[in-house]
């Protein structure tokens, strides 16, 4: 029984790591939702677009090469140089900031004072546009993320299980336990996500711009009256969300390759937000962890042989639906989420 218990813990730990990856996506949603009341459906596509741009810049790919080839009958794809990872990241961040600026200029500016649902529809449009635009710009082939930075002595994002943890915990308590298997990439992602959250929290609590961000989140009119330019703040928020999306894109892209289905992580972030609340950054983190741990542990229990012995049946692939069922339950009993602001209408 002890080995089963330890494997259960392993499942929980893996869930925790995956959960933090979910939080990374949810975080981008929360930032934009707080500052502009918009549920940004395009967040997942932004992650995809960020990761695509990064890989393509690294490989020195020519933007719109398909279009150029089709129009001029040429056959080009690469500039012929490779950009170091660090520089490519910086360039991609610049692209995401430019993108944020364009979104404000071409979209949000015209939708000030509109209903949230109209803004939501606009972001759906934006998501589909970016999906096509990203394909047109960089091609729709599967791209592999390579984060090797020889200058800093980083060989790339770590892959596979951590042997150190596995060896250290092997044979723990019983001979039938072979150590915890924890993905090194997940550990890296967890550390980066934690750092990101700490930086964002400190920034929003203790800096002038952070204060302005919170002010805009609370009351647009009052924010304008104290001298805050809404449009500047929106560009800043969308830039930050773009950078968070880029980080999520890199991590998820390293897991499953940079291709279209990356944009569907949006759907995984939804239950996280319903659990944690749309307006809380810590909520996004903890919501992600609960869903990550919950789905892994639930799967572990209902697919185990002793569960089968006791109940007469086992279940598999519960990870596909567990998060959504949990979110549904939350919607019924606690619609504002664990940490969201309670909606009280005064009459």
């Amino acid at each position: 029984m002890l080995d089963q218990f330890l494997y259960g813990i392993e499942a929980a730990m893996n869930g925790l790591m995956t959960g933090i990856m979910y939080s990374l996506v949810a975080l981008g949603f929360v930032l934009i939702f707080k500052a502009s009341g918009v549920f940004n459906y395009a967040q997942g596509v932004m992650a995809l677009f960020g990761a695509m741009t990064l890989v393509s810049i690294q490989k020195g790919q020519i933007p719109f090469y398909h279009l150029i080839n089709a129009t001029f009958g040429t056959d080009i794809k690469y500039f012929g140089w490779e950009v170091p990872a660090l520089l490519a990241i910086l360039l991609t961040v610049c692209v995401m900031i430019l993108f944020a600026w364009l979104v404000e200029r071409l979209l949000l500016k015209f939708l000030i004072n509109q209903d949230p649902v109209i803004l939501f529809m606009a972001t759906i449009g934006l998501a589909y546009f970016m999906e096509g635009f990203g394909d047109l710009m960089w091609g729709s082939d599967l791209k592999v993320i390579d984060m090797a930075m020889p200058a800093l002595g980083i060989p790339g994002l770590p892959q596979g299980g951590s042997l150190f943890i596995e060896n250290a915990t092997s044979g723990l308590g019983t001979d039938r336990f072979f150590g915890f298997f924890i993905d090194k990439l997940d550990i890296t992602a967890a550390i980066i996500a934690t750092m990101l959250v700490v930086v964002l929290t400190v920034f929003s609590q203790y800096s002038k711009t952070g204060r302005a961000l919170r002010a805009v989140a609370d009351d647009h009119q009052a924010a304008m009256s104290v001298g805050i330019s809404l449009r500047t703040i929106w560009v800043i928020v969308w830039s930050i969300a773009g950078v968070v999306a880029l980080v999520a894109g890199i991590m998820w892209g390293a897991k499953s390759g940079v291709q279209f289905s990356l944009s569907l992580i949006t759907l995984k972030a939804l239950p996280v937000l319903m659990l944690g609340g749309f307006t809380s950054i810590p909520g996004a983190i903890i919501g992600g962890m609960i869903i990550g741990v919950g789905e892994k542990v639930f799967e572990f229990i209902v697919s185990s042989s002793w569960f089968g012995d006791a109940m007469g049946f086992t279940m598999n692939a519960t990870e596909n639906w567990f998060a959504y069922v949990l979110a549904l339950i939350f919607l019924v009993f606690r619609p504002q989420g664990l940490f969201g602001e309670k909606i009280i209408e005064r009459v």
Partner: protein
Amino acid sequence: MKDSKDSYVTEDGRTIGPPMLEMKNISLRFGGVTAIKDITFDIREGEIRAIIGPNGAGKSSMLNVINGFYHPQEGEIFFHGEKRKPMKPYQIAHQGIARTFQNIALFKGMSTLDNIMTGRLTHMKTNLFWQAIWKGPAEREEVENREVVEKVIDFLEIQAIRKTPVGALPYGLQKRVELGRALAAQPKLLLLDEPMAGMNVEEKEDMSRFILDVNDEFGTTIALIEHDMGVVMDISDRVVVMDYGAKIGDGTPDEVRNDQAVIDAYLGVAND
């Protein structure tokens, strides 16, 4: 005397300067509804100027025009003698015009201190880069502005609630915090939209005292909308009276009180 462009001294010894803000032939329409009809008036440096009138007279619209939330279809606005281009509210805030709202518009999730600190945003200049680094200019600036905010907190006697989220405060205190946020900007012109609405007598007395002190100690020019006639007549130097979007009276409290058009608007006219 009061119509000339020169300074004069009031009975209680305050100096009222030349006009700071001049509104000339302002008209504001929403579709077919005329909110403000061809109104001209000025606000002089150092005075307390009240705007009164029945509900729906267009008083709040007038403040929104001054503050840049609305842009009038007709008319000109002069600020310190210079014609003002149509500007965004945040740009007007940077010019030194601060305001409070009829329905309190505070940042409810933030503490009293943070709320009042947002009032200092127009005085804080460090860019994102220094803010991210935090040490150096950003920290120094934060400390300097925090001192101003602490003075405002002392002045308004709200030391006890500085860390409380404002959403949890009673109504009267929220109004005071909102005033604090506007004061922290050290504005040249302070716009108060019904600063005493919904207050009890004691709270009203406190608020009147704060308004008079702000005017007296910092020389801040104040324009306020208020329904309590006793308060208005007590604290203001001059009063504009509006009804159905038009100006029906303008002058000292005494002049306005005895104006037949004003009395008619407030008490109704017999149609015979």
